[in-house]
Each structure stands twice: as C-alpha cells, then as structure tokens.
C-alpha cells in the first residue's frame, strides 16, 4: 500500500474547516496526487463541531477517513481537546492560539491565525486559509503553486484576492517558524 498522508482540519462550524479541506484536496489533485476529502459536522449552519478530513496518497485510497493524523489543524479549543492527541508520532499539530489555550503537547506549533488574518486582511473569516498557508509551508504536502491555484479557483466568488493574501501571510509565517526551528 502506498503511503497515506492524513490531514484533519477541525474547528467550530462557520470557521471554514470544510472549505480548507476542499482547498487542500483540490491542490493535491493539481499536484497529481490521489485524494479523498470527507467531512463531519452537526446539523447547525453555524456553531457546533466541524471537521474536514483529507487523505492524500500516490496510490489508491480505500478507507476515506483519517485513521491516525499526520497533520492536524485545530481552530477551536473543543477541536483541540478532541483531536489534538490523535496524532501520529512525528506528526504536526497546528493550533490557532487565538482560540486554543490548552494543548495536549508542548510540541504543537502555535500561531495566532485569527489575529494574523485580521491584521493582514481586516477579516478574521480567512483564518482557515492562513492556517492552510502555514500547513503548506511547514509540510510541503502540496506545492505552494497548487495551493494558490486551488484558492483562486475555489474561494467563494469575489474573495479570491482576500484569500490569496491570507494564504501568503500563512505561508510566510510557516516559513518563519521553519527557519527558527532549524
């Protein structure tokens, strides 16, 4: 079986965890990978737990859900409490420290995704895409070009520039963290 990369993006309904999953999956296809994206959310339009799961592989993907995450992005305390510990050894846990104060490990990468989004674009709503930018820079699981193309094509109508800006901010933050870690 080809190596599976399993990504879980979790937050509160309305934060865009599922859109982030769709963007990541779309980018993976642009990179020539196989991908499956699934979601889990409550009956509410906003609020309630919401998560997207993305499985990326060079081969067939049979089981479509996450078994043990390689990468987790948590955008709420509830999501972190629930999924933060379910990570593969050597995996990457990214937390939006504007919403998450308690982490299950000191190894988590913390960044103020919501504040970064607000400062760079004036809109907190794109914190999810800031997170995606960070995730892309930190893991290289998809290429930056593919991620940008996915955002350009799939961002809600009229928000492509806003989201591309958010992606760039996240990518720069990810690069910075990576440099510091060296």
């Amino acid at each position, binding site marked *: *079986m080809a190596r599976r990369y399993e990504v879980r993006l979790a937050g509160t309904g309305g934060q865009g965890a599922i859109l982030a999953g*769709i963007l990541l*999956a*779309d980018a*993976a*296809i*642009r*990179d*020539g*990978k*196989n*991908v*499956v*994206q*699934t*979601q*889990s*959310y*409550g*009956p509410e339009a906003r609020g309630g737990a919401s998560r997207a799961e993305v499985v990326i592989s*060079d*081969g067939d*993907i*049979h*089981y*479509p*859900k996450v*078994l043990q995450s390689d990468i987790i992005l948590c955008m709420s305390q509830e999501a972190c409490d629930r999924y933060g510990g379910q990570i593969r050894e050597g995996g990457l846990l990214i937390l939006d420290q504007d919403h998450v104060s308690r982490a299950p490990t000191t190894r988590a990468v913390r960044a103020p995704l919501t504040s970064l989004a607000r400062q760079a674009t004036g809109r907190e709503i794109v914190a999810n895409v800031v997170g995606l930018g960070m995730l892309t820079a930190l893991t290289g699981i998809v290429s930056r070009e593919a991620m940008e193309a996915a955002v350009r094509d799939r961002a809600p109508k009229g928000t492509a520039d806003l989201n591309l800006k958010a992606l760039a901010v996240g990518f720069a933050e990810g690069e910075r963290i990576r440099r510091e870690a060296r």
Partner: protein
Amino acid sequence: MTTEPSARLMQGDAACAEGAIAAGCYFFAGYPITPATEIAEVLARRLPQVGGRFIQMEDEIASIAAVIGAAVGGAKAMTATSGPGLSLMQENIGYAAMTEIPCVIVDVQRLGPSTGRPTSPSQGDVMAARWGAHGDHPIIALCPSSVRETFDLTVQAFNFAELYRTPVILLLDEVIGHMRERVTLPSPEEIELVERPSTTVPPEWYKPYENFPADVPPLMPFGTGYRYHITGLHHDERGYPTNRSDEVQPWLDRIFRKIERSLSEILLYDADGIENAETLIIAYGATARSARYAVEKARKRGREVGFLALKTLWPFPEEVVEHAAARLHRVVVPEMNMGQIALEVERVIGRHKVRRVNRADGEMIQPAQILAAIEEWA
C-alpha cells in the same frame, strides 16, 4: 500518479447530478434534505443549461408524484432525498411499480430512524428500499462506493428504469454523497445510454400493459396521440381496473419475470480473490471501502480473504453470493446498520456461516473492526 487533464475533485452528490445529466435526465422534482441537497443544488443549475426542468416541490410526496408525471410525459426523471423523504415517497414508489413507470429515486442514507442524525451516515434504508412500498413488487436498487461509481450507477439506474419500466432506487450514503474524491468522468461517447422501448403500432391498437414483447411493453408518452388509462388499481392490458384474478396474477408474474429474466444484466458486483479464499467479505457502499482496506491488510498478514463488493443490492444477487461462498464456512458482512443485507446473506448461505459486523452510531465502520472479525476466525 500522473494527472490526466480531466482529473478533478468532485463530490458524490455532484457526480450523481452529472450522471443524471449524462443519462439524459430531463426532469428533477425534489425537496431539499441533508445529505441529498447538493444533488438538487447542482441540478437546479445544470438542468436548465441542457433544456431540462427543475422544480422544488412542497414535499417529497409531491416530488415523486411530479417525477412519475414527467416520466409518463416521456422524460427521464429523477428525485433525490434521504430517509425521512424516502418514507414519504413509498406510496408513490409502489404506484410507479404498479403502473410500470420508469423513474429514479436517489436516497442518500443518513442515520435514522425518523429525523435521526441528519449529517451522519448510515446504511439503514436497505430494506426500506426493498419493501418500503406495500404489496408485492420487484425493485432495482444500486449502491455505489466511490464518486466515479456514483456517476456510473446513476447512468445505469436510468438505463435499468427505462429498459424494464420500473422505479430504480439509487442508495447512496452520507459518506459517498458528501465525499469529494479525485475523479475522471467518462466522455459522452463512452457512456452507453438506453432509451425507453417504443412502438409504431397505431394508437388505437396500443395496449400499455400487454405482455408483448418480452415482458416489457412499450410505454408511449402522453401527448403523442396514444390515449390510455393509468391507475394504481390492478388493471388489464389496456390499463383499466380489473378484479379478475386471471388478469391480476399473470400481471404480477410478468412484472417479477421482467426483472428475473435479466438478472445477468442487472446484478452488478466486483469480486476478487474468491477462488483461494478462506474467508469472504461481502460489503457495499461506503463500507466496501473500509472492507477493501481491511482485505488488503489481512492479505499482507497472509490471510486468504475473498472480497465481494455488491453494487446491485436488489434484486439480491443470490446466485452470486451462493457461488462465492460455496466452499466457505466464514463470511463477514459489515454494514452501517443493525444487519440488513446480512439477513439476505444468511438466507442464502445459512446463518451459522455469517459473522455480522454492525455499526449504527453515525460513524463509518473502521477497517480494524472488519480485520478483527477476520482474525477472530482465522
């Protein structure tokens, strides 16, 4: 893996909608319900683009009624719903079976009963698809396990409906309906389409329920000069109500026969590793993906595991299952319900040979659960 230019990310519900368009669906009537709403959403945009009609109805009863009406008018027609809506549609699904009007009913299964958990998957409507409408009637139900298969089986559902003048139920589940997956859709020339049997006999000779030819009489569209009667009452060859037993029983025999004589075309499945198997897994829908994962793991551990993925659930592929399990004493049937297809498998091969793996808590069956069932017996 290389990227074909046409490879794209697509949701199961969207693939169902695109499959309907590719099949020549011209009419959709429905009422939104999670997790089937995206099918309506896509078709509301796409059908007008191809000259078709989309109507949002006041409820599911009206939706299936409008679909049946459109089909009598000559259109390939479809509706899509989930469990609660399927319950409401059952009377008119029986009407479509009784009047032999082709139509496609998509049920994206969510956790029931009742309102249940609207956003969570289940395979709890398998028996409802078979026996939800009262009275004896045949039905065809298909069940895909990937986005591409959703496209293909939607086309197939229309083809079967038209070929056999029968309602066809397409059973998705929330996982398959909402899942987005890398997919390459076939080009139009690769898609085999079937048109409804027609006739050139003059209108005054036409009998809509005649046993001619080959158990499936032609269905002429209303509005083309062919005037005939349609009723949910038992009817004679011309469609008028009858109380004559010697007309009712032959009709029932015929509508069962028209499906049974074509089983080799209708029964769709994938089988592998059956010949050397010590254990057989039978699965369908989203659970077939968990099962496939578990089968590959088990084979790596040296277990001889056969895999039968069912795409046609109704009519139940009795002979296929009987043949696949003939030498075996261990058959594992995982499903996201309390045991529905397992009942059929047990009926065919005997209860003591079957190990059920059930889950009805709104989560997919995990490969580890199926692996455990394989190992338990090994």
